[in-house]
């Protein structure tokens, strides 16, 4: 009897421990962002000071600005490339289609550090300066497999008869894209854009190699600050980043749920 009761508790206990392991560090980080003292271990009282300090930190402001610019640009470029490639693969016949698809997804399985070193070597070889250009290019390289996969999955569910129906009603290629393909793929395209922006914003490995002087993105800026000492300022920043990311993911999920409900699948 007793043994079976313990056995019955096994699953809930393991589950709870798993979640504690996942979220305890985040909870601690959020709690100590409101600590009045300098310590990230000893609680001395509630305060919002570290938020004020974090928002007023020149380095963090600059890092946030760089990260935001790179995230927006790389997300737009990555989505454009991913969408075009996905439509080509789904809608047009061409030789070596599978090879082309696999090569596009390859950055997903290659170690990012190898890609990053490759980007750096290519940059040096081409004589370009490290900066926004190399950052955006590097982030596009990392995120393009994701945008390609998301849009391809959505495009594969499109009924090819819709294109024929539109052509039959007198629409030429451009009109078919603007009036049928694009509206139907829009939820997937928006999801892909948001996801690639998050990937860019969080990126560390690629950024370490291809950021230049004066274009240090936020994650690297934070890492640099750790070297001079851990203060709740970083906790405060971390809390704000969690907030932004959760909001973005909720937006993606919201759109996704809406399309799922809309198509009745």
């Amino acid at each position, binding site marked *: 009897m007793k043994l079976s009761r313990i056995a019955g508790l096994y699953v809930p206990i393991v589950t709870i421990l798993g979640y504690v392991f996942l979220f305890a560090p985040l909870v601690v980080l959020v709690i100590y962002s409101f600590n009045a003292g300098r310590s990230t271990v000893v609680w001395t009282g509630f305060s919002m000071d570290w938020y004020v300090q974090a928002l007023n930190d020149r380095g963090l402001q600059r890092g946030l600005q760089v990260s935001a610019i790179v995230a927006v640009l790389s997300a737009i470029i990555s989505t454009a490339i991913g969408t075009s490639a996905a439509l080509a693969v789904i809608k047009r016949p061409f030789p070596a289609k599978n090879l082309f698809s696999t090569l596009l997804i390859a950055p997903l399985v290659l170690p990012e550090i190898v890609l990053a070193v490759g980007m750096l070597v290519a940059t040096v070889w081409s004589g370009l300066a490290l900066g926004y250009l190399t950052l955006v290019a590097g982030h596009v390289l990392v995120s393009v497999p994701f945008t390609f996969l998301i849009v391809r999955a959505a495009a594969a569910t499109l009924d090819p008869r*819709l294109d*024929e*129906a539109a052509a*039959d*009603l*007198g*629409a*030429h290629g451009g009109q078919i894209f603007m009036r049928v393909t694009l509206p139907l793929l829009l939820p997937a395209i928006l999801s892909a854009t948001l996801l690639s922006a998050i990937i860019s914003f969080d990126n560390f490995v690629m950024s370490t190699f291809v950021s230049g002087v004066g274009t240090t993105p936020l994650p690297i800026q934070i890492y640099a600050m750790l070297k001079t000492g851990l203060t709740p300022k970083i906790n405060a920043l971390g809390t704000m980043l969690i907030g932004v990311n959760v909001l973005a993911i909720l937006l993606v999920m919201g759109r996704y749920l809406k399309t799922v409900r809309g198509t009745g699948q």
Partner: protein
Amino acid sequence: MPNDKKSEPDKTGRPAVELVDVCKVFDTSATPPAYAVDHLSLKIASGEFFTFLGPSGCGKTTTLRMIAGFESPTAGKILLEGHDVSGLPAHMRNTNTVFQSYALFPHLSVEDNVAFGLAVKRVPRSERGDRVAAALDLVRMRHAAGRKPSELSGGQQQRIALARALVNEPSVLLLDEPFGALDLKLRREMQIEVKEMQRRLGITFIFVTHDQEEALTMSDRIAVMSTGVVRQIDDPVGIYERPTDRFTAGFIGDMNMLSATVLERQDGVVEVLAADTRLKLKTNAELPAGKDCTIAMRPEALTFMRDSADDAAFAGKVESAVYVGTDRLYNIRLQTGEAMTVRVRNSRADSVLRIGEKVSLFCPSSAIHLLSDQDKK
């Protein structure tokens, strides 16, 4: 659309659609080439309800898709109202298609679906509204104008697909198995409704189906197709009552077929030998003595009692009997080994037979169809 053109033959006599030696080969690397459509030539008159009938894979849908412009012919010409459109893409042809899967735009309302063709052709907004409303009235779906396709039943979606095509006032409307996904009752209703609509609008309808009953009820003329070739073109009565081709005879309704050999030919009458029986039949076909051919008889044309002195007679034995309400169906094994099906009205005196009983089968010679074997496949 709003103006009801009465169905009348085109004064110019110019066919709405003309196919000249049209071929389609999908896999051009294969030798010999596998023809999906094999040197097809025919004319479809303006205002006609024309049906391509055949089993799946016979090339009927491919033919329709070539007329619509979704496929380009490998060889041959397609003329719409006298103009060669072989090289024109679908969006530049004055045809519209109703798809089996409806292919309504899921992101647009019913109204916007119907207005799609007018919008891409930049028809002024005010005119668009009137024409969309008239098209929706035509299919009795105006109440659903604001709804999304996913909120409609299959039959309703098919009506919207019809309205979306007809609103463009096409010279030819192409229908690709449009009722294939509907249940039987709804299909019957839609058949009558669409036929009535075609009569009223006077638009040329080209219809593709594998359902012989559907083809017979709706069409002015039917082209029976198999293996990429048109076997016979005729009106429904001709297709059913005067099949000239072995495939057509076997595909439309039930048919008993016997292999035969021509013995003698004289002044439009041939004498043939089939199942050890000599038969004299009238025909216009080129059948020299010694040639193989096929004779065909409908199960309902056969009886067990001689009605007239020159009826053909075959001897056989009853193998099985099935009661089907108004009729009885018998399977008869002839002495020469061939199986024949006989359908007899229960009201007839000769209707009840025992299994194993020896019988004579009679058929009036006017009900025996003589088919040439040249395209037996």
